């Protein structure tokens, strides 16, 4: 990224463009170049929209030269997981079934909000088919490789979104999270990710997976970038039936107010698996930097995870029932049997899981009477190898695909907001820590993320790609 743009983050780029040090068009061309030279071996993009990017960038430049306000994200290039509607192209949601779907008529709400703030859309990003996976090993569009180690997965299901930021192709991307699909790839790729409170950011125009649990949110390389983007994205939208009517509560103005007075504790028990060594070390480093030794036990976490699994299976399967009736053979072998099985889940299980969710929400409300922010690992291990089928959890070898989200699933189950912060250490792959808050307390989480970043404990350096890629 140009020297004028500072660290190449959202804030640096938009400031440089608004000051006239660089044009939006130059920044867009630079992003397109970087994608051309690096994406061959990483495989983030399923569509690069060079024409649209140039047109939007030119419009930002026109506004600036006319003295109009180009928006807080002026000229910031970004891309979205390919389950977001992008005007003029089919919304793939990672599937070949949708390769010939009618082109979307308008942009998804989240894309429209970023565009309105001056950001420039450059493309659509790879994901697990229909978001049902934690690895972005897509049988149709290929695996997305981890920029920190090309033999490893980027995590999923928003793998393309995390990898594009980690590889320095873009400072900002959009993803979605049902059971961990923002937090897992943020952890594996070593970038910041924000899964907001359920219903806080409009999902209008995003291809749903399991509506009771679906969230959308951003990836970026710093706390201030996440805060700026979150403030653009948050707010009511009558077109998303689960979107809250609660007015937006801007976070950026409070970002640098410190963490004094915040009660912070690490999650114990279930979240402190003795086998998850690097994950525990990352949580300990974050806790140390925040000067907390408090540990808090969350009730019935294992059941919360199971209940999320049951609801996901059923809602996911039934969302696809018409397509499964007609074309089950076109599904990715990695998702097919789970979608089919999901259609057959007895109502007794789903109803119980939904009622359990109400109960568990009450328990979590009580927990947040005692603390403001809970620390927990985002994943039990750093990025696994492409094709690796098992991981070890609590000393037992278990299928990787279903278990990478063991620490994320019980949190999104009741819609709690989470900022995933990346911990990098020399000679090792990055791993993420979840900063978990009470509903609508994103601001506190971003303040903690800023504090950790300032202390040098968390960071999102651009991956050193092999020389051949440059």
């Amino acid at each position: 990224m140009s020297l004028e743009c500072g660290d190449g983050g959202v804030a640096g780029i938009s400031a440089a463009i608004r000051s006239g040090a660089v044009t939006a068009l130059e920044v867009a061309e630079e992003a397109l170049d970087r994608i051309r030279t690096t994406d061959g071996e990483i495989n983030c993009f399923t569509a690069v929209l060079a024409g649209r990017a140039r047109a939007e960038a030119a419009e930002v430049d026109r506004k600036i030269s006319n003295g109009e306000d180009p928006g807080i994200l002026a000229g910031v290039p970004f891309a979205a997981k390919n389950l977001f509607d992008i005007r003029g192209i089919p919304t793939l949601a990672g599937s070949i079934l949708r390769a010939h779907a009618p082109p979307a008529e308008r942009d998804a709400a989240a894309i429209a909000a970023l565009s309105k703030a001056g950001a420039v859309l450059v493309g659509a990003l790879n994901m697990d088919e229909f978001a049902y996976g934690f690895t972005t090993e897509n049988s149709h569009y290929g695996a997305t490789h981890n920029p920190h180690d090309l033999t490893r997965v980027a995590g999923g299901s928003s793998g393309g979104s995390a990898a594009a930021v980690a590889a320095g192709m873009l400072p900002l991307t959009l993803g979605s999270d049902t059971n961990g699909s923002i937090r897992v790839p943020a952890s594996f790729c070593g970038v910041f990710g924000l899964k907001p409170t359920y219903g806080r950011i409009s999902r209008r125009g995003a291809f749903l997976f399991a509506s009771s649990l679906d969230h959308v949110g951003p990836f970026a390389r710093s706390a201030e970038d996440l805060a700026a983007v979150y403030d653009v994205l948050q707010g009511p939208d009558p077109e998303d039936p689960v979107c809250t009517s609660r007015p937006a509560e801007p976070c950026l103005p409070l970002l640098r107010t410190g963490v004094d007075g915040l009660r912070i504790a690490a999650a114990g028990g279930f979240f402190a698996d003795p086998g998850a060594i690097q994950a525990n070390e990352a949580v300990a480093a974050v806790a140390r930097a925040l000067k907390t030794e408090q540990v808090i036990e969350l009730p019935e976490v294992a059941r919360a995870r199971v209940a999320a699994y049951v609801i996901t299976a059923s809602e996911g399967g039934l969302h696809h029932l018409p397509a499964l009736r007609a074309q089950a053979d076109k599904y990715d072998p990695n998702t097919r049997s789970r979608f089919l099985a999901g259609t057959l889940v007895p109502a007794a299980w789903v109803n119980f899981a939904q009622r359990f969710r109400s109960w568990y929400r009450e328990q979590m409300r009580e927990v947040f009477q005692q603390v403001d922010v809970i620390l927990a690992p985002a994943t039990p291990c750093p990025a696994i190898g492409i094709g690796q089928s098992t991981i070890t959890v609590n000393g037992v070898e278990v299928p990787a695909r279903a278990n990478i989200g063991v620490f994320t699933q019980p949190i999104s189950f009741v819609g709690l907001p989470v900022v995933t912060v990346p911990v990098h250490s020399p000679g090792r792959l990055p791993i993420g820590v979840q900063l978990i808050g009470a509903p609508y307390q994103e601001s506190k989480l971003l303040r903690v993320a800023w504090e950790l970043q300032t202390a040098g404990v968390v960071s999102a350096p651009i991956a050193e790609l092999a020389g051949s890629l440059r």
Partner: protein
Amino acid sequence: MRINDPVVIAELMKCHEVYEKALIANDTGVLDAFFWDSPHAVRFGVMENLHGADEIRAFRRGRPKINLDREIRRLDIMSFGDSAGIVNLEYMRPWNGVEQHGRQTQFWFRFEEGWKIVSAHVSLPLEQARQGSADAGYLKAASDEIGLKIAPEYYADVNGDLNRLAGVAGFLMQFPLPQDVEPAPVFHP
């Protein structure tokens, strides 16, 4: 005709070893190459009846790559003359937390291009087979009720997923949830 000629037995042993390795890795290229490329080839699996090389290939391509590892408990190889042999084995494989004791029979024939499996049969002992068929019973009945026709080659995997769900749903539903707790139809966290 020599029965169990050591040279022929050694050839079949080598074929078996390569095939077994490919099976566990789900190396479909190697597996396909070892099966007779003919509409007459037959493979009866635990849950599927496959007729012809095309059906066998399609099944392999659709199979997930997890949990294919197995431990061979007993291996018997027989040969009849220099171009016909049978490989029989018993194996143990954990599946959904239950140790399966399976059996496999392969009929091998030597063609000009080398040894090929022309017919194979995999089965589970009666009790486990009954369990599997009872599961498939739910799958068939429930999918019929919602107008969803599931192709038989997917039964094994869908049943595996249903069994996993059933296992964890049982754990969930043991929880003493108060009767007056309602679901939240529109969920405000």
